[in-house]
Each structure stands twice: as C-alpha cells, then as structure tokens.
C-alpha cells in the first residue's frame, strides 16, 4: 500500500500525452480530475471525452483480455485498463507529469494507437500457429495435464498479444528482423504441444536471421509482461531445441 507521503494529494493529475502521427508528434499537457477508482485508460478516456475529442487511442475489453490498450506510461510499457493511476505513480514508476505515449517499437498510426501488423506478421513468421495431425472427425486426444511438456506448454499459453514485451525489448529496437518475445513464446508453447505436427518447420522458422538466437536475454519482456509470462524462459527453450536440431542436422 502507499504510504501517506506517497499518496497523490493533488485533486488534478498533470498528464502529458503524446499526440502526433507516423511522422512526428509532441506532448500535450492536460489536467485530469483525480478519482479514487481510476485507471490509466480512464485518464486517457477522460481527455478524449472532455478535453480533446480528437485524441486517438485503442481499447476493447476493459479487463485485460484483449491486449489492445497497451501504452508507455512514464516510459514503461503496460496495459492501461488494468493499471490503477496510483500504481503507475508509485516508487520508481513515479513521474510528474504522468506521461503517456504509444508503445515503442511499433509504427504510430495516430496519437496512442500503433500499427500492430508487423507484430502479428512476425507471429505468423515464427510459425505461431498449430499444425494439425488429426481432424474434426476424430476424437480429442487424451493428454495428461501433468506431463513436463504439457506443463511447459501451459506455462506460456496465456498470452493476450498485447505487445508489451515487444515494446520493452531492445533487441526488437535494434534488429528489425527479430521476431520478438511474444511470437517466440508462442512458438515454444507449440513445440511442447504433442498434438502439433509442425515441429521442424517451426524450429527452422525460429532459427533464421530474425530468430530466437537474436535474443540477448535482456528480460525486459518477462519483467513487463502483464500476465506474468516468461518469454525469456521460452526463448531459452527454443535456443536449446534449435541447437539440438541443428547438431542433428534436422534443420
């Protein structure tokens, strides 16, 4: 909990929101009334509703399921619908004014909304999709929930493709081919999915010039993933499996 001294006392929040387009942008300052129950998304919504009707941002589910609302808050990537203003202003995160920017590493469309198509294109390029070995006319495979592979698959499965990890990662910033933590994390779940038939295809896909080997274990992805997933761990798994496959000349 916040100590008394840390509690924001002002009735208004000073907020600086980045506004602009793909080419350029600047911060605009706004004063937003502070409320007891208020997320960063609420702050942004307030500005659009009451101060700057043309402010663009993105959200859908409001509850941390769709991964549409991620932004940089005080310089850190996070989901905004589930980040209480108090939390964003506590400790090391504190910033005055509260700054809100579009996610890093993705081209901006307008204001706080970025173009996520590159992120998803890499998802596909990493073979981040299931390759079936059965059809709908067959029974569902019995799979023990306790096997090591299944546990590993489950551990990485609850990704909402919010691109927070992607925005946090400097390997993505530096290397435009790099598939990034989310896509690789997905590939790892599939590698561990015993129902999947695309193993070697996928191992090759994550071994190319933008593959898992371009991760430098910065671990910003794991540090910021709002669902507490650990893409770093997934990526090390891929590094091991691709190494084995390469040594055996399977890829």
């Amino acid at each position, binding site marked *: 909990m916040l100590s008394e001294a840390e509690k924001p006392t002002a009735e208004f929040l000073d907020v600086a929101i980045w506004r602009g387009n793909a080419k350029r942008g600047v911060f605009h300052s706004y004063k937003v009334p502070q*409320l007891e*129950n208020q997320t960063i998304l609420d702050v942004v919504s307030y500005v659009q509703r009451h101060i700057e009707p043309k402010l663009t941002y993105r959200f859908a589910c409001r*509850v941390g399921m*769709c991964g549409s609302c991620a932004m940089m808050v005080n310089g850190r990537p996070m989901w905004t619908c589930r*980040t209480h203003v108090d939390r964003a202003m506590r400790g090391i995160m504190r910033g005055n004014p509260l700054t809100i920017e579009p996610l890093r590493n993705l081209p901006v469309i*307008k204001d706080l909304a970025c173009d*996520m198509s590159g992120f998803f294109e890499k998802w596909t390029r990493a073979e981040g999709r299931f390759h079936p070995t059965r059809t709908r006319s067959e029974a569902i495979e*019995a799979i023990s*929930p306790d096997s090591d592979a299944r546990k590993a698959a489950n551990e990485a499965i609850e990704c909402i493709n919010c691109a927070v990890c992607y925005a946090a990662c400097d390997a993505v910033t530096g290397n435009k081919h790099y598939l990034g933590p989310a896509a690789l994390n997905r590939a790892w779940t599939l590698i561990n999915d015993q129902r999947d038939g695309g193993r070697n295809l996928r191992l090759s896909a994550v071994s190319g010039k933008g593959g898992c080997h371009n991760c430098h274990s910065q671990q910003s992805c794991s540090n910021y993933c709002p669902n507490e997933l650990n893409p770093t761990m997934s990526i090390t798994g891929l590094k091991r499996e691709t190494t084995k496959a390469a040594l055996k000349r399977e890829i």
Partner: protein
Amino acid sequence: MIERHDTDILIIGSGGAGLFAALHAQKANPDLKITIAVKGLLGKCGCTRMVQGGYNVALSPGDSVERHFMDTIIGGKWLPNQDMAWRLCETAVTRIRELENEIGCFFDRQPDGSLHHKAFAGQTFDRTVHKGDLTGIEIISRLMEQVLARPIERMEEHRALGFIPSRDGEGIAGVLMVDMRKGSFRFVRAKAVLMATGGGPTMYRYHTPSGDKTMDGLAMALRIGLPLRDMEMVQFHPTGLLAGEDTRMTGTVLEEGLRGAGGYLLDGNGRRFMFDYDEHGERATRDVVSRGIFSEMRKGNTTPNGGVYISMAHLGPASVAEKFSGMVKRCGDCGFDLAGGLVEIVPTAHYLMGGVECDSDTRTELAGLYVAGEDAGGAHGSNRLGGNGVANSTVFGGIAGEVMAMDIDSQKTFRDPDGELLQAEIDRALQPFTIHKRTKISGNIHAIRDQLEKTMWDQVGIMRNAEGLQKGLDQISEINGRMMDCGLEDDEKVFNLTWHDWLNTQSLVEISGVIANAALSRENSRGAHFREDFQDEGNLEQSYFTRSRQSLDKDGRPRLKVEQKNVDFSIIKPGESLVEEM
C-alpha cells in the same frame, strides 16, 4: 471520394462467428476471395475473447445432444427456434473437436487426459469445456493465428455503416464502410455478406461487453427492413464491478463462481438480503439474483456508488485468493481487495438473446446476407445458458462459411447497388458534421449516451412495467432528437473516436427503441424479460416470440411494428421431453 473494393465473401466482425466463417468458407472453396472487416484489430475486439466460463458441448459418456437440447429449450423457456437450438447442440460436438484437433485450442484436461467438463448453471449435466477461466482468449487467439496464416484479406479498423441492397431489392450488393484510420468511405461489393458484429447490449448504464460492440449490425439490419426477433430479451449478469461513473471498469464481470463458492451479497448496511427473495440465497439463478439486487437498489439500501457489496472474506482470504487468483488479481490491479474486503457490485447487461431472424443455415430474408453469432436471434429464446454463447457463435459462424461458399458457387456477377441508399447511408454517417455546419455547435455525445444508458437501465432494464416502458420510449425519442442537434467539428475524420462515439450512440438509440417496444408488447414474464405488471409466464403451449420490423411510412419516416409470432415446436412440445428421466 468513395473508394470501391470487390470481394467474394465479406465477413463483418472477427469474433468466434466471423473467424470461423472465414476458415470454413476458405476450406470449402480455396479460390474464393474472402475479406474480414472489423471495427477493431482482428481477433482483439468483440466478446468471444472475453469468454470466461466456457463452451457447452455434450461429449461425456452419459450426456447427449438431446439432453443439451432440452436444457437449452427449457432454459430459453420454450421460446428458442428449435431447429437452430438443435443445430447448435448437435454441431457443437464437431466444432469442439475441430477447435482442439485442427485449430489448436487446448482445453483443460482431467488427470486421465480426457477433457474436463465443469458445471454451469441451468444444466442437467456437467458439460462446459474450458481453459481455466480464460477460455475465450484461447479460442480467439488460436482462430486468429489460423486466419492470419491464410490468404484472407483483412480490413482492420473498418467500421460497417450500412448494408446496401441491390437496386431491385432482391439481394445484398455490398456494405458501406469507413476506414477509421483514414476517415474515408469504402464501398465493398460482395456476393455474400456475413453479419457477425456480435450484438452487445451496451446501451445500459452497466454493461459487460467490449467497447467496440454497439449494436451496429442490428441497426443496419433494422434500417433495411429485416425482421428482428426476441429483442426484449436482454440478459443481465448479477455481479458486475461497480467502481464509479468515470471508469471503464464499471460493469465488467466478476466471476459467477464467486457466488457459487459461497460469497455473500450484502446491502449498503452490511445485511445479507438474498434470502428475502429466494430460498437459494446468493446461489439462485442469474435473473433472480439480478432482480434481488435491483430491488435493494430501488429501496435505496445501497453502497456509496449505488450498488451492493460482494464479500468473500468469510471463506478465508488466502483460500479465496488461491481459488480465484485471476479475479483477485484483476481486482487488485484496479485497487480492490476481493479476497479480504468488500467490493461494490451491480447487475450488468451481458448478452442480447434477440437478433436478426434467420434459418438454421444462417440465411436471412435478404438473398446474399447471412447472420451468425450474437447478432442472430432464435437459438436461445428468452434466456441463454452460460456456455451456449460461444458455442452458438462458433457453430453458426462455421455453418455460414460453408453455406456462403456453396450459395455463391454459381454466382458470376456482383449485384448492382442501390445508389440512392448508398448516398443516404453516407449522409447518415456524416450527420454530425452536417449538423455542425448548420449550427456551429459541438454537442456532447457522451452526455447523450449517458442519458440513454440511464433511461434504458431505469425504464427498460431488469424489471419492467408498462408505465416505465412508455416513459422509456418517450425518453428515447427525446434522446434521438438530441442526437440530431449534436454536431461535431469537421476538421479531422482520421481515426476520430468521437465521431465513432456518435455513430455508436446512434446505433444504440435505434436498437434501444426496438428493445423497449418489444418489451412493451410482451405482456408476460419469460426468462430474462420480467414484467412487474405481468409476472405470469403465460401459456407455454401458445408461446410466441416477438418480431420487430421497421418500414418507412408514406412520409418516409421509419415506423416500427412489433408482431407476435407463434413458436414452431418443430421438435418438441411443452410437456414432452427427448430425454427419458427428465
């Protein structure tokens, strides 16, 4: 000024219905050009992603399609379109296998490796397949991956504005859209169009669906004169989070299981009140609990924000935090202590059973236009079972894909659009700018929507009566008048959310009128529809559903007509059952 685009199959919406339709159409005929247009990002909007509970399917030994069907009919209080309900229960079995075996979803298993089925209210068998309490994310993410990897055209952040029938009125020619990112219009011609915008009763002050859902599809269907059925049937979830007026958290669902596990509902003074209403207390069904809470709210026994409390602490905060970790964490992120403290809640509008009338092959009255998912009316009748929503959208989405591919097989040319209607739809979308040009006043669209939400909540909500409904209708038409005075400065259409808020509110106002009228016409209480002045459920054998249809009177003004149509008991009659021991 308006860009043109052609495709074979145009799918509007990327929920379970839209994505399944794309995959099935593509599989049925890989040569077809298939386009998905969606208001948000593909797979990242809509409610299929938000499914928590799970997916109903009769798979276990001992369970049967017949049983699932009977539960659906009884849950829907004999109003469902039985052919659709049967198709739903029957196809769910193959659909879940397709989701697991071909799409790659992984649902929770039992220790022996077989699928885990959990209990869900209103069912005689444990048949809800799930992935923890994040089933929707698993379903939509996996579907999305499959769609992304195929040559299916994507039009993201494209909002459908109007269905444009052909000049001769025989079929659909295409859909008018706005590319939200550019702010420009696009007319997309297609041989077949699937409407899968997912309904979503977001015209209520408290609501669960995602922000992008605002009844656009139904409003578009209404405007071209298609019949809508069961529009009075709005399902409320009893436990929505109540966090104040100015936060988007308000209205979002707190898990059903909290009540099931023994959570207490307390009024503003800390008194447990549910036993005043039902012997099952907090564990009574959704509609009963919603009405109980609503009654307390009317009496004024409320919390600071005007709702009631849910309290879990007596079950031991640590064990609550473990059992409901996702929910507790979500509340924690937003500043609430669900495990150990009191959290304010309020019933919240969750699902619209009503929708466009169609047959069990998803065909509507208008040739070339199909409907699936929450936009389609009929499968659930007066109440939807938890777990039948996502089954419905995935089952009928897939069917629509196949049927569309089949139906257009021999169709060589596009239908010729009705140019006048196209222009009328463009003008309609530009209304706020036109108003501003005339009045030079920028209105406050948010205040108007707030007013609509309050009206619907107070007058057309959980408990209804003739007087209130009439008042509601009057207020809706007043709100409609305010819309026509609400201008918007025309200096930037690019990704202008406030313009879209205007359009959203317009769709909501149109459909709110339909809901209120249908509710007024049903003088009994069935399922989700509760009339204080007609509490009886009416004669089951003579069950009817409402059909609302809009036409233009001779002055060109829209007029809504609500009819009562007898339910066709095509499979089973009240008093009979397909299951022996029921």
